[in-house]
């Protein structure tokens, strides 16, 4: 659900079919009947953007029929925890939660906390911005377990709150909201609950079908709630799998070339938070209990890795040199900042924002405001040629002679021409060898950045200005080789793994990191990838044999600590015995008094299953979690069915309509996510609800034969010919209504722009009945552009800049548009 595995991750689907051979049921829930649906046992059509209504229906089904995995959920989730009495859920406030502050258009989290106890978030922003920061109530976490009622009778237990919140998600309401027939929904609910328990596990596989929404985070959360209730998390064959789309997008999230995090999920210091000094930063971002209590070790080790001996205790290990963010600097607002002339220089390294960025026409105009643009890619991309081939130039709005931007188009080295690691969607860090030199002037990005850094250090060498200190303080010495002076990727990987300071002995595992400056570590979650000077675990290629156990610990390095299934303590019952022989993964070895198993145990090796914290000594970190707390990164060690802190749009997944929707929210008065990030401006208008000018739902998607922005497949002959032109898919009924015949040219339009494409009329798309209205959905692949062998208009000309409150992910999967027969440009 929220994914299309057979098309976009075909090799992952290899194992879905192998599970099918062993009797698994394959369920595909998608707005379109795709190649995945063709191989599924049950296919459920749904309206794009209505996923939470469907998933909420599953939660309702599980709770109403008491089908949740009792022994698992009672011990390993916060089901029995009692929430603050001031809390009110969406069923009471017609779609909002308690704590809504209309003027600041945001929530106050006080009423979401545990009764009498504040809980820090478990993601990169631990800081709980309740009205009082890190109040005395937070200290309660060290004084005793959260307030719980194992009998689940207390009205404010998470269990009762879930029942109240999801009471309205009846099968009838699911059908009215999603358009999926009731009988099919019930068949899926029955199949999912049957595939759970001691002997069976079920998995959710999602991708950008869920993340590309203003309610994307909560869609994934809804699946997490279901899997925790059914006891599928942390167990073999269970869990919620993210299928990501780029070779190392997991790596570029862990070692984040992202604005809001420092390497590996440490929050980027913020100007408007208590982050002015290192002490304030550590104090406000270190939760008292759980694994994150080690936060200072990772922060100080990072600073030591970046600034070497220039980092001293007295200058807070160089912490002031780290730039503070002053708001949302993600890609969506970045394109607007370029349009407003705030950004003067832009590097684009192996990306194609003119194709992948929302509201592409705005982006193409915005790029003309840049002073300089550096594009590094394998061929000329739409981003590189905007100044003479872009929409504003072709429409005559701009002429190249009017565009001031100085543009560099530099060739990049490709796979096999540079060495380094990718981190795949399974957190697996795999090394790829260098076999040949890159052609001509093509260089790796490692070489480009390294040599750019050396040139900048030279330019700033004799500056005495304090603001230039960080450039000079950076540790930037890496051995180079060959005529192209290529820096050693293994040297960088060693720094990411971490070493002792100053004698630079490789760190073996994350537990060896210190907060006194005696260890340097660029990426704490990757500690162990290079445990010894001559042992690069990412380069290890020893799979398990046919006799198992099948966790393949000898193939590459899975962060953290080479663990393949995280939270795998949950794969054993509260007493430490495997739930069943069939689903055996981890168990407590009574003789050796240690945990053992086929995977690296995600628990303290010697902590007994019946361990209870000694609350009298105010236990810190892991000592505060009992022997039945698999979810070590969460302050109370239990899976958060109810999330007290960390999410901006609510503690529980709630169905909101996409920002642009043809219908009113069938479940609540609150139409769309109240905290969705919106930028209402002349170049980024949104469509009002049910706007008659844009009656159809548009969903964008990917094809097997193309990749993301299309550059590495549309400019490669053998893949270009497989899907040679842009197209849209529409229902036969809609086509008849508009007199459109198969392969006719059509024009799609939104307030952001118009594009043309050929029409594929197909029964794989069906009109849906949504609360009494007949809604038509149109599908459009978004890979195409004007460069390459395979061409087509850019789908993202239609989308708007709008984002999920937590992640600022765009809403390319569900918007409204208009459709007419004909061409855009006179032929």
């Amino acid at each position, binding site marked *: 659900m929220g994914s299309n595995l057979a098309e976009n991750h075909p*090799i992952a689907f*290899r194992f879905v079919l192998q599970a099918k051979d062993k009797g698994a049921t394959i369920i595909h829930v998608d707005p379109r009947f795709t190649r995945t649906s063709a191989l599924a046992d049950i296919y459920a059509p749904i309206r794009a953007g209505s996923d939470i209504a469907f998933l909420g229906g599953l939660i309702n089904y599980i709770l109403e029929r008491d089908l949740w995995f009792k022994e698992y959920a009672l011990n390993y989730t916060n089901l029995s925890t009692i929430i603050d009495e001031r809390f009110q859920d969406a069923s009471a406030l017609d779609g909002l939660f308690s704590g809504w502050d209309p003027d600041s258009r945001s929530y106050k989290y006080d009423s979401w906390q545990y009764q009498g106890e504040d809980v820090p978030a478990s993601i990169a922003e631990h800081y709980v911005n309740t009205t009082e920061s890190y109040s005395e109530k937070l200290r309660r976490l060290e004084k005793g377990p959260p307030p719980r009622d194992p009998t689940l009778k207390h009205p404010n237990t998470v269990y009762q709150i879930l029942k109240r919140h999801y009471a309205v998600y009846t099968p009838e309401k699911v059908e009215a909201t999603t358009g999926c027939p009731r009988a099919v929904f019930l068949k899926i609910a029955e199949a999912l609950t049957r595939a759970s328990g001691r002997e069976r596990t079920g998995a959710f596989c999602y991708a950008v079908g869920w993340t590309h929404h203003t309610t994307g985070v909560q869609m994934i959360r809804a699946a997490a709630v279901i899997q925790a209730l059914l006891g599928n998390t942390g167990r073999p064959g269970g869990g919620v799998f993210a299928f*990501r*789309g780029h*070779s190392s997008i997991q790596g*570029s*999230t*862990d*070692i984040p*070339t*992202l604005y809001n995090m420092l390497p590996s999920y440490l929050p980027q210091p913020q*100007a408007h938070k208590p982050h002015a000094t290192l002490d304030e930063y550590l104090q406000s971002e270190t939760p008292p209990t759980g694994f994150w209590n080690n936060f200072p070790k990772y922060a100080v080790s990072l600073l030591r890795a970046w600034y070497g001996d220039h980092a001293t205790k007295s200058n807070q290990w160089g912490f002031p040199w*780290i730039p*503070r*963010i*002053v708001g949302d*600097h993600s890609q969506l607002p*970045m394109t607007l900042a370029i349009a407003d002339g705030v950004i003067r*220089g832009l590097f684009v*390294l*192996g990306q194609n924002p003119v194709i992948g960025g929302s509201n592409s026409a705005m982006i193409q105009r915005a790029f003309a405001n840049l002073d*300089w643009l550096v594009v590094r890619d394998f*061929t000329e991309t739409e981003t590189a040629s905007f100044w*003479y081939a872009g929409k504003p130039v072709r429409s005559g709005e701009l002429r*190249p002679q009017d565009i001031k*931007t*100085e*543009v*560099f188009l530099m060739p990049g080295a490709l*796979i*096999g021409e*540079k060495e380094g*690691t990718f981190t*795949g969607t399974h957190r697996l860090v*795999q*090394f790829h*060898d260098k*076999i040949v030199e890159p*052609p*001509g*002037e093509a260089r790796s990005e*490692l070489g480009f950045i390294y040599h750019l*850094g050396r040139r900048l250090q030279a*330019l700033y060498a004799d500056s005495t200005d*304090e603001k230039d200190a*960080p450039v000079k303080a950076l540790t*930037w010495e890496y051995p180079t080789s060959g005529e192209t002076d290529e820096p050693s*990727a293994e040297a960088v990987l060693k720094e*990411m793994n971490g070493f002792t300071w100053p004698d630079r002995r490789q760190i073996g595992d994350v537990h060896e990191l210190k907060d006194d400056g005696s260890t340097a570590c*660029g*990426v704490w979650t990757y500690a162990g990838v290079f445990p010894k000077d001559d042992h690069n675990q990412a380069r290890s*290629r020893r*799979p*398990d044999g046919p006799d198992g156990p*099948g966790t*393949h610990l000898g193939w590459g390095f899975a962060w953290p600590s080479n663990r393949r299934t995280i939270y795998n303590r949950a794969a054993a019952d509260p007493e430490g015995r495997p739930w069943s022989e069939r689903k055996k993964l981890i168990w407590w070895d009574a003789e050796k008094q240690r945990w053992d198993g086929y995977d690296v145990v995600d628990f303290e090796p010697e902590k007994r299953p019946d361990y209870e914290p000694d609350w009298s000594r105010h236990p810190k970190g892991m000592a505060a979690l009992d022997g039945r707390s698999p979810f070590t990164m969460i302050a109370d060690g239990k899976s958060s069915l109810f999330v007290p802190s960390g999410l901006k749009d609510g503690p529980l997944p709630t169905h909101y309509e996409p920002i642009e929707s043809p219908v009113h929210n069938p479940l609540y008065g609150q139409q769309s996510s109240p905290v969705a990030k919106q930028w209402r401006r002349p170049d980024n208008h949104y469509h009002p609800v049910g706007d008659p000018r844009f009656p159809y739902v548009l969903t964008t998607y990917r094809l097997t034969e*193309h*990749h993301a922005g299309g550059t*590495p497949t549309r400019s*490669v002959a053998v893949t270009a010919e497989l899907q040679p032109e842009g197209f849209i898919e529409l229902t036969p009924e809609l086509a008849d209504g508009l007199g459109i015949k198969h392969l006719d040219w059509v024009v799609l339009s939104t307030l952001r722009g118009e594009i043309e494409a050929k029409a594929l009329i197909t029964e794989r798309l069906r009109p849906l009945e949504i609360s009494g209205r007949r809604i038509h959905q149109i599908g459009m692949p978004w890979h195409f552009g004007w460069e390459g062998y395979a061409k087509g208009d850019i789908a993202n000309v239609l989308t708007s800049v709008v984002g999920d409150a937590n992640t600022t992910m765009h809403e390319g999967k569900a918007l409204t548009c208009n459709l007419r027969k004909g061409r855009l440009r006179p032929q």
Partner: protein
Amino acid sequence: MTKIHRRFADRVAGFVRDWSLPRQIAGESPYSKAAESSLSQNLRPRLTEADKVGTIICPYCAVGCSQLAYAKNGRIIHVEGDPRSPINQGTLCPKGSATFGWLTSERRLDHVLYRAPYGEHWERRPLAWAMDRIAWLVKQTRDETFVDELPDGTLVNHTLAMASLGGATLDNEENYLIKKLFCGGLGMVWIENQARV
């Protein structure tokens, strides 16, 4: 400067060598052994001529399939699935199978192109020149726009005038140095990649 083509004499010699009639008379089957030409006999897969082979990871999606890249004389001559990997067991999808085609695409760029401000066409410029020019532009932009404190005295130490996009398709080591230089060194905050796209 000899022109390569099959000379008449060679053509006759080849005919005689591969003529199937004598072999048929000698009893070989006209459909197989007798008809087999010397070309077919000596046929071998080109991988036998590779002087180097390495394991690479497919550059397309995040499933992380392993591939074997064969090279000869410093050039890649084929890329296909690595049978040892538990992730793909030798198989590849259409994109992974096209890795060789990507490396040898006719549209591939291998020199630096430069467009001067207000210019109407690309020019070729040496790599070293481009690197120097970019370094100079970065320093100039940073020096003109760096802010150490907000008006209310809050420490920021950043520049809002430079941004970086990419890269979910880049190596971990590359992403690490980008964040280290741009954020830890230059004080840039607009640093993003496809993870949100």
